[in-house]
């Protein structure tokens, strides 16, 4: 899987989606380089690669809510229009297709036939009963995904559903503890069909658009997928626990916890661990990247909602929302004491009285000692 095998769509040096200057374009690529932990100078290389060829992308949607696309639509540098028109060539997407019906399916077939593209999978894929629970144009989505993936250079699973089944794979008691549709992630779905195209997962519900974008640009630039962990997540984005860089972490360390929604600690921005925050067991970069370019604290924990572990396979949609996390590295000592409480700052009557008495006593004692010393000196002489 080398990007050299990718089909070149066209070469453009100016923006098709509006007034994106070259300077802004390089800024975008440099930012993406920084997200991935690459030197900012790599931005130029990324820009070069992204302008040299636009990567064709086929977007296959299974059992999904379109949340991942919606989230990606709200990224701002670059915005989605630049992404799909300048950086990649989005050839097929059920959400964004200009055409519909047979026209759209014909475009898909033409694109698959041409090959050399990257497939993005969104949503989960039902395997139960031959995959009949999700169909497009009369074919099961699993068959479509297998066909598209077999000619793809790589597969990117966007969102928790595509990564390992996500919400549709949640088990139900009246279904015998199994998912009603036998929903699985794209990797497992392809495996069941014997397709061996490499898969990288960008889990999250929804994932941060920049993690997806950076993965795409990495592929375009280096012709390979980024280094991944044991759950096929890029390490640049999912290498650290949310807890490690959380803005509320000092409260955790000092033992200041919100005990209930809306209580005093919750209002003061204390740690949400006791409300069931799964930050201590979830690997993601939410705490450092935040969402949607609206500034600081734009992520669940920043808003006062405990993390529910969406990007962790056996946490999000599996562990109860408000049960405490099972911290991976550090556990909170039970004996922490708070540093707040009690009257602040101004002199209280008690403090002023005691303080005044002490100063008076010290000065008095000093003078009395001097007097007595003088007297004693007279006696001695």
């Amino acid at each position, binding site marked *: 899987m080398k990007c050299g095998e990718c089909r070149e769509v066209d070469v453009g040096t100016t923006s098709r989606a509006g007034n994106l200057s070259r300077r802004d374009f390089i800024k975008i690529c440099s930012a993406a380089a920084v997200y991935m932990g690459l030197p900012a100078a790599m931005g130029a290389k990324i820009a070069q690669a992204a302008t040299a060829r636009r990567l064709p992308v086929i977007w296959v949607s299974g059992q999904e809510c379109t949340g991942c696309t919606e989230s990606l639509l709200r990224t701002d540098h670059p915005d989605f229009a630049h992404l799909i028109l300048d950086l990649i060539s989005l050839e097929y997407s059920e959400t964004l297709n200009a055409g519909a019906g047979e026209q759209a399916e014909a475009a898909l077939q033409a694109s698959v036939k041409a090959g050399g593209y990257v497939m993005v999978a969104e949503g989960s894929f039902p395997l139960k009963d031959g995959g009949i629970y999700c169909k497009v144009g009369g074919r099961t989505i699993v068959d479509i995904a297998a066909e598209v993936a077999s000619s793809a250079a790589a597969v990117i699973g966007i969102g928790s559903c595509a990564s390992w089944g996500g919400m549709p794979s949640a088990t139900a008691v009246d279904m015998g503890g199994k998912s009603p549709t036998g929903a699985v992630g794209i990797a497992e779905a392809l495996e069941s069909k014997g397709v061996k195209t490499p898969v990288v997962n960008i889990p999250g519900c929804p994932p941060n658009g920049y993690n997806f974008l950076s993965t795409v640009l990495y592929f375009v630039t280096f012709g390979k997928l980024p280094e991944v962990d044991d759950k096929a997540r890029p390490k640049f984005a999912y290498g650290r626990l949310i807890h490690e860089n959380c803005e509320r972490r000092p409260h955790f360390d000092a033992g200041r916890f919100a005990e209930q929604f809306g209580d005093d600690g919750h209002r003061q921005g204390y740690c949400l661990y006791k409300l069931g925050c799964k930050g201590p067991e979830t690997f993601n970069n939410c705490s450092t990247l935040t969402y949607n370019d609206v500034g600081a604290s734009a992520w669940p924990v920043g808003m006062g909602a405990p993390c529910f572990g969406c990007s962790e396979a056996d946490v999000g949609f599996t562990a109860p929302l408000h049960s405490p996390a099972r911290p991976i590295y550090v556990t909170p000592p039970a004996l922490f004491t708070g540093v707040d409480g009690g009257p602040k700052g101004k002199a209280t009557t008690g403090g002023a009285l005691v303080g005044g008495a002490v100063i008076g006593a010290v000065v008095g004692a*000093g003078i009395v000692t001097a007097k007595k010393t003088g007297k004693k000196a007279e006696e001695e002489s």
Partner: protein
Amino acid sequence: MSESKPLGGKIFTRAFAVAFLFALIGGWFLIQRFAQGLGAVSNMSDGFPWGLWITYDVVIGTALGCGGFAMAILVYILNKGEYHPLVRSALLTSVFGYSLAAFSVFIDIGRYWNFHHVLLPQYWNFSSVLLEVALCIALYVAVLWIEFSPAFLEKGGGPQASKGVNRIMFIFIAFGVLLPTMHQSSLGTLMVISGYKLSPLWQTPFLPLLFLISAVAMGFALTVFESFVSSLAFGRPLETKMIGKLAGVIPGLLIAFLVVRWGDLAFRGAFGAAFGGGWPMIMFWVENILFILPVVMLLPRPNREKAGTLCLAAFWMVMAGAVYRFNVFLVGFSPAPGWSYFPAAPEIFVTLGIVSVEVMGYLIFVRALPVLPEPERA
């Protein structure tokens, strides 16, 4: 070292009982501090993360404990052996002053369970002034106990027992002079980095020098004052002659201090703030009058032969240094509009408790160990 001997006598006197009572009260509030957190007993806040405990117990407490340092400079560096009888009692004050300052840091820091981190190199931040102060004080506490150790050895084995230790003592004496020079000036540096938050009346790059000079002066002054107090308390003859000569150092130090202090104020054009109103103005003048008083009192030689005048001048000197430190660390410090700080009553009681422990320790040690000079040699 036959010049010192234990005082003997009953340890549980009335003074000891009073100190014990205050120590108990302080202990009660300390239990509250550890059970319920800093906020339960202290008025400290995010704006004033340092309150009475650091300002008095550490910054002033260690300066009062500079007796050992000041006497070491005089006796060992300037080779004035005649003052040697005063060294051990000055050292004892330093031992308690510094040990309890370290303990005060432990009760003052919010995350006291990380206290040991200061001794672990992997946690060191080499651009931190506080690291220098903390390491220096930690090391100096150890050095002080070693410097004082002959008193313990002689208690058990007579005057000859400390011979071995005394042979290598010069190393520790050298450290005992070097370390306070470093951290007493760094205590000033701590507030240099607070920038504009400290009133122009006190903020100056000379803070380290001013802190060092005033610490040495306070060390001498407290040694003088303490000599009179122990003469009164234990019914011993006054040591006026030796003490009077020693006190001759103080005006010189204070004049040096005032020249730097006022010269700097004039050079920076900050003198206008001395008439700016409010607490900083009042405390500035209180401080300066306290500094000038001992100079006026001790400069004429005949005054230095009068025990009463000597004692009072030494007391004003100690107060001057203390007020100066209070001014730099609390009165002149304004982190941002709206913050204010005055110690809470329990906070003051904790400090009183710590001072009481010092007094009790001093009373026990001078009675049980050879600390005070033999009267006929004084």
